[in-house]
């Protein structure tokens, strides 16, 4: 059974269809990339899958459950999480607190416990902070343990979002251009991190313009163009697909 199943999905904004009649499936335990030119609808697709947008029509099934229009926080509880192309960082908090927000689903958060700062809450807080520091180490942000989010670089914040998403312990992790704006070294680090995440059994959906990275780590690739499926297959199949070369890879060079 596939972890995610998208069937005849459509999303229109006014008259414009950002996603048209799109169908595909994602198998558990794979790295699945979604590529396509700017404006192809990749981020819109993420927003539809994660509940930020409601589909105009069609169906999205996660873990064999219909989730079209379900609120994002409920999807997070079902095991879905993501990062953002344009960042959704809590700039009013420290770096580790950003990650701790990601752990929200799994921590002691009773009202009386919080107001009175009962010992069980203090214990949970200490453990959560420690775990979130480990996640920061895991994504290569060890030196930002005590940093404020507002003092971090764009590239570091991209990885902070990955750590935050991991803190929620997702089954399905959607990464929207995690390497955008990173230098070569940082890109290789993120590449490594994604492989290690997948190695832990998390299913990864990756939107990325860095073709070297996509071709290197993907099990499966979906190519979007104008909101519709242009091609689908293994990296080798995509590389040799004439439609893809004409529409997309050809442009990038």
């Amino acid at each position, binding site marked *: 059974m596939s972890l995610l199943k998208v069937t005849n999905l459509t999303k229109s904004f006014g008259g414009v269809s950002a996603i048209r009649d799109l169908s595909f499936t994602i198998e558990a335990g794979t790295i699945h990339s979604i590529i396509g030119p700017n404006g192809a609808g990749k981020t819109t697709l993420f927003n539809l899958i*994660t*509940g*930020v947008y409601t589909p105009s029509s069609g169906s999205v099934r996660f873990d064999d459950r219909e989730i079209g229009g379900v*609120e*994002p*926080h409920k*999807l*997070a*509880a079902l095991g879905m*999480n*993501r990062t*953002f192309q344009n*960042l*959704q*960082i*809590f*700039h*009013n*908090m420290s770096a580790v*607190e950003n990650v*701790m*927000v*990601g752990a*929200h*689903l799994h*921590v*002691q*958060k009773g*009202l009386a*416990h*919080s*107001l*009175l*700062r009962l010992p069980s*809450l203090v214990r949970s*807080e200490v453990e959560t902070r420690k775990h979130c520091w480990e996640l920061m180490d895991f994504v290569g942000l060890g030196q930002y343990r005590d940093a404020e989010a507002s003092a971090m670089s764009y590239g570091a914040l991209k990885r902070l*979002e990955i750590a*935050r*998403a991991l*803190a*929620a312990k997702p089954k399905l992790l959607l990464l929207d251009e995690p390497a955008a704006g990173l230098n070569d070294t940082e890109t290789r680090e993120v590449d490594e991190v994604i492989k290690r995440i997948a190695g832990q059994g998390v299913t990864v959906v990756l939107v990325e313009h860095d073709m070297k990275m996509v071709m290197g780590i993907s099990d499966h690739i979906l190519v979007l163009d104008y909101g519709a499926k242009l091609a689908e297959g293994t990296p080798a199949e995509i590389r040799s697909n004439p439609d893809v070369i004409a529409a997309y890879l050809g442009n990038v060079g």
Partner: protein
Amino acid sequence: MSAFLQRHRGLLILAACIVLLPLAVQNDYHYDVLINAGLNAIVVVGLNLLIGYAGQISLGHAAFFGLGAYASAILTTTYGWHSLAAMGAGMAGVGVLAYVVARPILRLKGHYLAMATLGIGIIISIVLNTEAHITGGPDGMSAAPFSVFGYTFQSEKSWYWLVGGCLLAAVWLSSNLIDSPIGRALRALHGAEVGARVVGIDTTHYKVLIFVISAIFASFAGSLFAHHTPTVTPSILGFIKSVEFVVMAVFGGMASVMGSVVGAVIMTLLPNLLASIEDYEPIILGAIMMGTMIFMPKGLVPTIAKMLRRKEAP
């Protein structure tokens, strides 16, 4: 213990101020002003949780304050309830009212809460004015003396310590809340709402929760006020009062618990200090407000804290 000291530096400074202030107090009038400042501070500490952390404005907090006051006045006199029971009933009633109002509204994006709370304030004010057989109408009514476990608070001095203790408790509870998963959820939804939702935070739930808590803080302070003041009249819950609470929070510093206390205290004392130049009072208050908004939009306490930190750094 040292961890406690570290966490609650502001709380300790406040406690020291409360203990030392009586040395400078010369008469009951001074105590009276300080007691009112403390009660306002409790309201503003609660209101600031909503404004500074959930990014929502309430223009009805004077109404919640007033409801608490009237609950205590009516229940302890007409119905002969115990002071604490009346106070608890007021807080529960206000909590339910706040929930019923906020639940449908906070699902919507934008600042509809400001308008809804404005409406509630007006309605409550009209009801209290017209239902004179229960509330005394515009003439108001008095509450029974405040007594807990057989001790009745009579002297201004005893009220000072009571309100001081309650303020410390309010600050402690709020600081704890802000530094908990609930507080992080609130700060997160203020910082980046979509980001908060996708990591599993039911943002509507937390906005409603903090609105209800802040309304209960106001009701609590209102109950104390009712027992302390000679008469509770509808004037305590007018629209201007609600605006004053908001301005206290903004002036002292949004998202700053100590800022709320400082803002409330300064803005309660100011009209009394400026009494000699009474005619110009509104203008001077307005000028101070404008100055704050222009020169330190984060508010008094956060701005000063930032300056001090900069001085410490090399």
